[in-house]
Each structure stands twice: as structure tokens, then as C-alpha cells.
């Protein structure tokens, strides 16, 4: 193909990627090594509200000649990365003397560790979620595909639609439904109480995590199902017939004909699911509000919106990105090798 035609075909795509992927990434990285703070001064203010008048000593921004707050923006290098990873203990960003807040206790290392481990804790839970849901998604999706494949032609449409439903429901709505099922006075605790089992699902780590994993499996199984179902339609019939003639059992036919044929699809599902699961967010924010189950995406969101610190959030976002690159390296290397060998 002529270079010009090649560029014309590829051009729009590349431009979109530059604008929507590369540029934001560069900007995020740029933000993650800076910090902007408004210069504050201590003042006495008379506050008058519907509840009365009060004089307080508080802080107000220093204003410049135009009546706008003075902002100090500095390059701070990898300071925010260290903070998010919990690798700095007491020294604040500006490089002043460590604050003397824990004079009465030896708690500083423990405190720093606990607070800083937020990112590592979030990463750990995200990876647990990704790798625990994956096998269930594949197995259940496969069994579902097999099942629907062997259903009569008339009912296939019904079953396919029903199986796809969990994937179509908005994640927030789905997570809310699961929360309402399992919270105090929800349907599940109510039914379990008839068997004398009383579990408080949101109260401990194992149950909260289980709920999120259950949500994850339930939500993604339809995706695996539809891909594998489509794959099952393309299994070579003559190979299957040959296997039957040779006396292969059902299990052997599955193992030697069907599964190898589906192997590339299984890799595809794994790749897509890993990338999606790594970004888990809705169930964390809706089901548990982050208790026991912080994910990396939730952490970035929390820093951005609750702490209102776009610079620290950018650092968390870049770290999240580095995490997913690490996760995907083995698969990408494998794909690259296959391409090189010429498929």
C-alpha cells in the first residue's frame, strides 16, 4: 500500500489517540510532579450566620492587586508518588521540620505505614478481585455457553437474552441491588435467619470482599458467555465427527477439539476482563464505600474529589497505569511473539 494511502487510513485514528490518550497522559504525568497551594495567612474574622455572630481566628487567602488569591506552584518531583506509596513518614512536602504530633507515643512508623499502605492495600484488593473473578467467569461462561448451545432452537433466543441481562444493567444499579439484598433486613439475611445463620455482610472484610467478587462474576459472565457461545458455533464439525468415529468420549472431544479451538477466545476474554477488573469502581463506591475493599480506581477518585488534590490524584493515576502495564506485559509479549512468527 502506498505510504500516502496508509497515512490517510491510519491518520484519523492516530490523531484521536494523540488527543484523547497520549496528550492526557502527558498532562497527568506533568501534574503529578507539581503542587499548587494558595498562600494563606492567619486572620481574625467576625463570622455572622443564621445562628449568631462569632469571632474566630482562622486562615484566609492572601490576595494580589487584582483581588485574586495568590497561588504558589512548584515542581516537587516524585514526592507525591512517595506519599501515595507510603514511602515517606513524617516530613511534609514543603521540607519543614517534622511536625511534633505524636510526642506521647511511639506510633509514627505504624501510623505512616497504615496511612501509606492505602495504595498497596488498594492494589492488593484490585488484584485479588481480578484474579479471583477470572476463573469463575471463564468456567461459568463456558458452561453457560455449552448449555445454551444444546437448547432447542426455539428457546435459544430467550436464554441468550436472559444470560446477557447482568451485563446490560448499569453497574451502579446492579451494585445497589446487591447492596439492598444483603444489608440489614435485606432478603438474603432474612432467608438465612430462617436457617439460624446470621451474617452481617458489610461488617467484616471477608464478606464485604465476597460480595464484590460475586458482583464481579455475575456482571462479567455474560460477556464470556456470548464470546464463547459464538466460538462454539465455529467448532469444526468434521473434526468432532472424526473424534466420535474414533470412539472419543464427550470429555475427550471437549478437551482435544473444542477447547483448543476456543483457546484464542479464552485469551481474549482474559485480556479484556483483566483490564476491566483492574478498573473496578462502582461496586466499591456503592456497596461498601471503600470499607475493607478499596480499589485503585476508587483511591484516585477519593483523592481527587474528597481530598480535592488533583496533583496527588495524578500521581495515584500514573501509579495505577504502571500497575496495569506490569499486569499486561506477559500477555503482550506473548501476542508480539505470535505476530512475529507470522500467523
Amino acid at each position, binding site marked *: 500500500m502506498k505510504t500516502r494511502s496508509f497515512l490517510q487510513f491510519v491518520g484519523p485514528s492516530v490523531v484521536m489517540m494523540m488527543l484523547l490518550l497520549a496528550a492526557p497522559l502527558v498532562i497527568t504525568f506533568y501534574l503529578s510532579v507539581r*503542587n499548587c*497551594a*494558595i*498562600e*494563606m495567612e*492567619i486572620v481574625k*474574622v*467576625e*463570622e*455572622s*450566620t*443564621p*445562628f*449568631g455572630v*462569632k469571632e*474566630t*481566628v*482562622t*486562615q*484566609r*487567602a492572601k*490576595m494580589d492587586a487584582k483581588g*485574586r*488569591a495568590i497561588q*504558589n506552584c512548584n515542581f516537587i518531583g516524585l514526592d507525591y508518588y512517595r*506519599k501515595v506509596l507510603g514511602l515517606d513518614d*513524617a516530613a*511534609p*512536602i*514543603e521540607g*519543614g521540620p517534622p*511536625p511534633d*504530633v*505524636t510526642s*506521647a*507515643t511511639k*506510633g*509514627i512508623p*505504624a*501510623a*505512616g505505614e*497504615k*496511612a501509606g499502605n492505602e495504595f498497596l492495600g488498594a492494589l492488593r484488593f484490585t488484584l485479588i478481585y481480578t484474579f479471583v473473578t477470572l476463573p469463575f467467569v471463564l468456567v461459568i461462561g463456558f458452561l453457560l455457553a455449552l448449555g445454551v448451545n444444546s437448547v432447542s432452537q426455539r428457546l435459544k433466543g430467550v436464554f441468550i437474552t436472559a444470560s446477557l441481562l447482568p451485563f446490560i444493567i448499569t453497574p451502579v444499579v446492579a451494585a445497589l441491588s446487591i447492596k439492598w439484598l444483603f*444489608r*440489614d*433486613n435485606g432478603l438474603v439475611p432474612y432467608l438465612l435467619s430462617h436457617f439460624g445463620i446470621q451474617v*452481617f455482610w*458489610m*461488617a467484616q472484610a471477608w464478606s*464485604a470482599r465476597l460480595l464484590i467478587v460475586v458482583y464481579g462474576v455475575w456482571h462479567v459472565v455474560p460477556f464470556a458467555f456470548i464470546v464463547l457461545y459464538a466460538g462454539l458455533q465455529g467448532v469444526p464439525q468434521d473434526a468432532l465427527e472424526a473424534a466420535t468415529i474414533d470412539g472419543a468420549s464427550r470429555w475427550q472431544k471437549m478437551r482435544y477439539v473444542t477447547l483448543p479451538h476456543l483457546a484464542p477466545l479464552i485469551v481474549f476474554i482474559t485480556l479484556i476482563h483483566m483490564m476491566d477488573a483492574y478498573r473496578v469502581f462502582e461496586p466499591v463506591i456503592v456497596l*461498601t*464505600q*471503600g*470499607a475493607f475493599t478499596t480499589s485503585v480506581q476508587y483511591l484516585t477518585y477519593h483523592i481527587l*474529589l*474528597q*481530598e*480535592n*488534590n488533583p496533583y*496527588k490524584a495524578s500521581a495515584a493515576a500514573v501509579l495505577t497505569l504502571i500497575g496495569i502495564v506490569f499486569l499486561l506485559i506477559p500477555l503482550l509479549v506473548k501476542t508480539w511473539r505470535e505476530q512475529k512468527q507470522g500467523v
Partner: protein
Amino acid sequence: MTLNLNLNAHLPRRSVVALATAAAMAALLPGMASAKCADIAGKGDINIVGSSMPSVQHLAKEMETCNKAGVKVAIKITPEARVETERAFGSDGKSAFDAAIISGGLYSNLAAKGQLQPMTDLVAKYKTKFKIEDNMLVKSNGEVLAIAYQQNAQNLYYRKDIFDKLGLKAPTTYAEMLAAAAVIKAKEPSIDFPIAQTFAKGFDISTEFVNLYVGFGGKLFKAGTAQPAFNEEAGIKTIELMKSMLPYMTPNALASNSDDVMNQFQQGKAAMGVLWASRAARMDDPAASKIVGKMEFAAAPAVMPGGKSATHLWWDGVAMPKNLTNDRDVVFQVLMDALDEETTKAGNDSTIWIRSVYKPTRFGTGVVLSMKAGAPIWPTEPYVGLATGELGKMIPEALGGSMTPKQALDAAAVAYTKAATEKGFIK
């Protein structure tokens, strides 16, 4: 002259339909009777942002009837209103919104950054026209920076029927509350967890902490600075008190937010607790509540006998940014027109209004009683949000037992100091 009362007369079909439609419309759209912006001078395409509180929804509906030529009002209702307001008011260019409906806490942040448009002259100009009342004005060093229209607080909810049955009085201190809970747990078979309160990680638990902490004489910050002072004796006592409540609360308490607590009350699973007054009306919602008419409201209990009611007063109101696009005079008129006496009367039950024409319902009793019992206003320092953010993360660790109260408070203090230094409050 004869009266032709031919009752069997056949009215032309079109007239019947027209009459029916008119009647239906009159019944369904009472708001149409008084359209807004009738006497506003000026033009503008005005954008306002607010959260999804019932009162904001009511104001939005009223503002949408604005039908003066040249004035268009659009109000964006979003749960991320706080973030959107901070971004818009803080941007270097023009603000995306000409006004915002903000809470007292957000007001403190914005006022500290000097981003609010002073309105003192506009108040003087339009005071009589829109009947702006003095206690609606929110001033900083005499300059009006916001107009408040509603108040809210967490007050005590208690099941009067159960209390009467067991001969209990509404608790005025937390000690009495725990004693009543013990009695109810022992003697009332339908209730396993007498106390329901919002202990969810984050905003909820940090608000509970601050409510109780000041009752122990605690100060959040060292006088005259932004240095934390909450990791001392009073803080430990507060966490100990919260721990002592846990045996009477559902084990899911550490994930219970306002929705969950409201649900526990409505289902008759809890007999008392401190919850936002804005939820009170839902106790009598027959579609969701099994305890209609049985819940009563009182001042939040104090932490010590003779102490002040352990809760804080919040207000919500409207404010304009310094960098607004439209004419501040027109925007101010639109806002005051939306908050006039008529709107208040029309939406009387949607919140606890500050205007004097507000007729208090029984759902507002708790707030009024808490105010009378000395509840203070929520702290106004701009760095309070940073402190509560860290406290909200660490206190559940102490309540869950994985850290001692002192460790959790110290951890919060260290994290808060870092955050406050990043923002420039601590040098």
C-alpha cells in the same frame, strides 16, 4: 326569566374535553399560578448548580417557571455539586455557574479562598423588594457573602411508643441513651439493636466524632493555628464513647450511612439514634415506613450531664462567584426571587426554612430543641474538611479494634498535617 336547568343537556364534546383538561391542569400544576421573574430588571442566561436535596428540587421547579423575556434560568442538579462549585468558582477564567447552592462547610472553603462575590450593596438595594430577612445574611467581617435559606442538624429520633411502654424518658445525655438502650434490648423482643446511628467510614463517622468531641471540651486545632489538637485526651474519650454504643448497634454499623439508618428506623428495627432532621419526614412515609406517627424528635443528647446538645448546626444557601459571567445584579434578583416568601410557603414541608413565614412541622422540632440546648454551628475553619477526611478514614480502625484510639488519632493527625501543608494551611 326562566332558569334553563336542563341537566341532561348534551355539552359539545370539545368543550367537555377542554374543561376537563383545564381542570386537570389547574389541579396538577399549582405552580403555574405564580410564575417567577415577573418583576426582574435586566437580562441574562443564568446557570446555577445545586445538590439533589428536596429543597433544591423544589427551588429548581419554581425557577423553571421564570418566564420574563430575556431572562433564562437553568439549574443543574447533581450529587457532585460541591466539586463542580469549587472547580467553577476557582477557575482562572469565567465561572461556569453564576451562582451555587452551597452548604456552610463549602462556604467556609470558598470564603477562605476569597472566591465569593460580596453582595452587601445588592442586599441593601433589594432588601424591601424581596423581603430579605436579617438572619438569612451570612457575613464575613460585615461583608455579605451568602444568603442562607435552610438549616439542618442531626437530632435525636426516638420511638415514643416503646419508650412510653417501658416507662423511659427521652434521653438528654449519652449515658441515659445507653441505659435506655440496655432496657430496650432486654425487654423489647422486637428490637435487637436499639441504637441506629450513621457510623459509616468517611463523612458520617467523622461528623459523629466532631459532634461528640466538642462536648468533651475538645478543640480540633491548636489555638490560632491549623495544627491538629484532636489526638489528645478528649479525642480518646470520644472514641471510647462511640465504642460503648457499638454493642447496641447492628454489626453493620460501620457501613451504615443515612440511608441505612433511615431504613432501620422505618422498618422498626431500631428505637433511637441521632440522625439528620432532613430525614424526619420520611418516618411518616406510608409507602416505606412501618412506624408512621410513632417516631418523635428531640435535642441530640449531650455527652455529659449539663452539657450542650452534642450536635452541630448546618445551613445551606446561595452564593455567587467573583468570576461570574452574567450581571451580578440580575443574578442576585433571580436568586432572591427564587427564595421569596411565596416559594417558602409552597415548599414548606420540604426542609427547615430560615424565613419567618416557615411553619415548623413536628419534623423540625429536633433542630429547634438542639439549638435551644446550645448546639454550636459546624466549625468554620477552611481546613476542617481536611481534618474530617483523615478522621473518617482512621476512626473505623479504632472502632473495629485493629488500632487503639490513640494510634488512630495520631495517624489521622499525621495524615492531616501532611494534607494541610500541601494546601498551604501549615507552613
